[in-house]
């Protein structure tokens, strides 16, 4: 029920967005090895406090954005396009 400040559309209701993934992770190289791919595919942290997440504004501009959110208070600390310069 919180608001996400979409960099393109302004503050919009959370219901317009879909959660995507943990934005602190990066996709391993194709040949990074089984352990790296296992971690990427299955391991997730469940941090308490500030967290970086990918959200997509599916019912708006469809941009993927990086949202920094406090998982305790739901405070949104920042929101920026996932792809720089867009």
């Amino acid at each position, binding site marked *: 029920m919180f608001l996400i400040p979409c960099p393109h559309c302004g503050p919009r209701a959370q219901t317009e967005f879909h959660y995507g993934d943990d934005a602190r992770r990066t*996709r391993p190289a194709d040949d990074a090895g089984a352990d790296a*791919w296992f971690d990427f595919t299955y391991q997730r942290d469940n941090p308490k406090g500030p967290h970086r997440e990918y959200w997509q504004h599916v019912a708006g501009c469809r941009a993927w954005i990086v949202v920094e959110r406090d998982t305790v208070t739901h405070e949104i600390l920042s929101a920026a396009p996932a*792809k720089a310069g867009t």
Partner: protein
Amino acid sequence: MSNRLADGGLIDRGRRLRFRFDGRGYEGFQGDTLASALLANGARLVGRSFKYHRPRGVFAAGVEEPNALVTLLGQGRREPNARATTTELYDGLVAESQNRWPALSVDLMAVNGLLAPLLPAGFYYKTLFGGPGWRFFEPWVRRAAGLGKGSTAPDLDRYDHKYAHCEVLVVGAGPAGLAAALQAADGGERVMLVEQEPRVGGSLLWDRRTLDGRDGPAWAEAQAQALAAMDNVTLLRRTSAFGYYDDNLVALVERRTDHLAAAPAFTTRQRVWWVRAKRVVLATGAIEQPLLFPDNDRPGVMLAGAARAYLNRWAVKLGSRAVVYTNNDTAYACALDLAAAGIEVAALVDLRPAPDGPWPARLAEAGIALLAGHRLVGCRGGQSVHGVEAAPVNGGAAKPLGCDLVAVSGGWAPAVHLHAQAGGRLGYDEALGAYRPGPVRQAHESVGAATGMFELGQITGATVDDGDASPVGPGVEPAPGKVFVDLADDVTAADVELAQREGYRSVEHLKRYTTLGMGADQGKTSNLAGQSLSAKARAESNAAVGYPSFRPPYAPVTIGALAGADVGLRFVPQRRTALDDWHRRHGAIFVDAGHWRRPRAYLRNGETLEDAYVREAAHVRQSVGIADISTLGKIDIQGPDSLELLQRVYVNDFASLKVGRARYGLMLREDGLAGDDGTTARLGEHHYLMTTTTGHAEHTLSRLEYHLAVDWPELRCVVTSVTEQWAAIAVAGPSSRDLLREVLDGVDLDDVPFLAVADVTLDGVACRLFRISYSGELAYELHLPAGFAEAAWTRLLSAGDGLGVAPYGMEAMGALRIEKGHVTHAEMNGQTGAADLGLGRMAKAAKPHVGRAMSQRPALTDAERPALIGLVPTDGTTDFKGGMHLLREADVTPAPSLPVDSLGHVTSWSYSPALGMPIALALLNGGLAANDGATVYAHDPMGGRVVRARVVSPHFYDPKGERQRG
């Protein structure tokens, strides 16, 4: 209305309303609640208690009511657990009491009261759900304990939701809320003021105060009129704020027609408002708390403020002789009001040894006896209170006081619920014996009594009389006996102590173990008292005990209101293709495919579904059929790096795909399992059209957008959904080319080989033709502007008249694809990889792609994995069923004896017109390589059937694909 005072009250004596309670007819006045009308008729007994079936009467005068829960009937509805205290009376209202059998006055279940020692706190846990004890007790307990029964009939009422924004939302139109709203509105801010009652004024409706020379209700109404006249103010009555969520989103429920005998047309019964406010002012007031004493639950025992409300607002003569029991000044006014209304006050019993200030003097003036330093130690009565015993707090002989009304005040607790829901902290005020709002996390403030501040002049800015009374008073140790802490849940002081002794020290454990505060009232008059008892038992402060989380809703909300208009067809959005109307007019029966509605089959005279789909599928194999495949996801991909995107998301190679050609592609998920499939056509040098399955279109688009934004931002290409812009028609069957030749221009169909793409026109409209076959026949897919779909569809049908062209639906499409061994999401079920689906060779391309690394895990390359196979019944006739488990012969002989190891399961089945028998696709351990020709037994444990089947190739029909290339 034997107990109605001769005059006074905010009721319209000119409008008599008839109503029925438990089958008996009564009368009330416009302005009554069900509770006030029952009391005015002398009906004291309104319910039976939750666990012990003790007789209970009205205890409060608002949402905090723990006892007077009734079932409202009539107007086609049955609403259980409605509070009589907030149910506005209307002419013809019908209500019945709850939790009694056979009748309210003769309740045989009251035997529970005698068995009380067997029903202690934690009874449910102690009898061990599922254990022999529970098995014995369950039917009896389930029947005996509880609330009203809901209805299983459809809800005939309509509800809606509304979204609103404002600068200031003021919750509560009592003195503080009115003042706050006027101040904000005068400043030019957009203001919403919401009041749960039908009238504004809050405590002014019964507190007999004067403000600026006017009586309270008149003053409040004048303020409301001033507000309503302002353009920047929205005033909603009968509207409760029930939830406070993040970013100042407040949920309200507006009861629009519940107070009317007949609802106007085109008006929803209730409306939920979602209000996003810049700031919120919580003027939610305070809720009076009781004092505890033995048998304090007898009908006739009620909160002192509630007693004043029934006297002053509803002109109800509550009894003939009253005892007022208090620890603070506020109940003195109650005693004075009772006396003024002609009710004898036997005594005011005050816990405080030496109450001072102006109130004791006023009491003396009115000739009312004051028993200072006393507490109540007993309460006599049955279906009504007969008397109490008061004894000195320091010990001493108890004095009996005959009475039929006990008005109790343990002080007033700020209604901090919304403040706490919003994430605000609470601070325990020892003097007040309650929590006050502390620091906030969101943009809201509390005002007035909601902060524990009760000075009316200061709150309103008006010149007021000298009627302020302090709610501050000491706590009391209840005398031994059956002391009810939580009336709604039948939680006693002994239960709270027992929980403490048994180690349930945490306030959250206390709540769950005893059910304290878990009733429909959510402990509004019991949580604080229970926590105080717990604190005493722990020998700690109330602050150390703390409070359980405050959660929405503040007061019960009907499920219908929460659902709003999103019921029936609106429960999930239904997507319909451009041809939907044609299908409907031509005998189609429909099936849901994701959010889409698709034709399942077109029934002709007297046909069953199976008749129809077998006919349709056979017709495609013999002649030509057309199908609406508009629901396929279509993603337009453009940009110089479009090919690179395809290379990275598909397992197979697209580098060799030439302009004007199409190719089947398989996508994996990052975990290496199959994600989605479809064909992608190259329309230009840097222009592709990707199709996806119907169900995964949105997800696949979202994943492509994710990769382009997050993983590969360097790729210069853009993906756009064109699913709804393009309708699509499959034209399939040996005569499909002949049919299209008649209607298409701009193309020589002999120059369109298998998997080619051509720009064509149909009646002058530009379309795209793809030679793609899902059915395995010579077939095409025609993509055309959605608005042109029906014209093209009917043109195809009429042009092909000589060919007997016929539409076919999803079921026939399924039969055709199962005959060909094509997979859908029944097989791509999130557990299968490319090799499992017989598509392993597609993944041989030496290029990185999504899912490649994980697809090489040992578990996914194990030869014993379940893999796609075909099944035919060995008797050539027996049907399969989706989800059937595949078992060994030994495990079904002589009959299946579960549990056994399953070797796999049937994913799809159909009757095959081509083979003339039922066929199935299945996932079987080891796949075809290990099982070709083997016999397995498909078992439906629910239906109890076993089908003996032979394992065959999943490519039942034309395995070499000669027909589609023809």
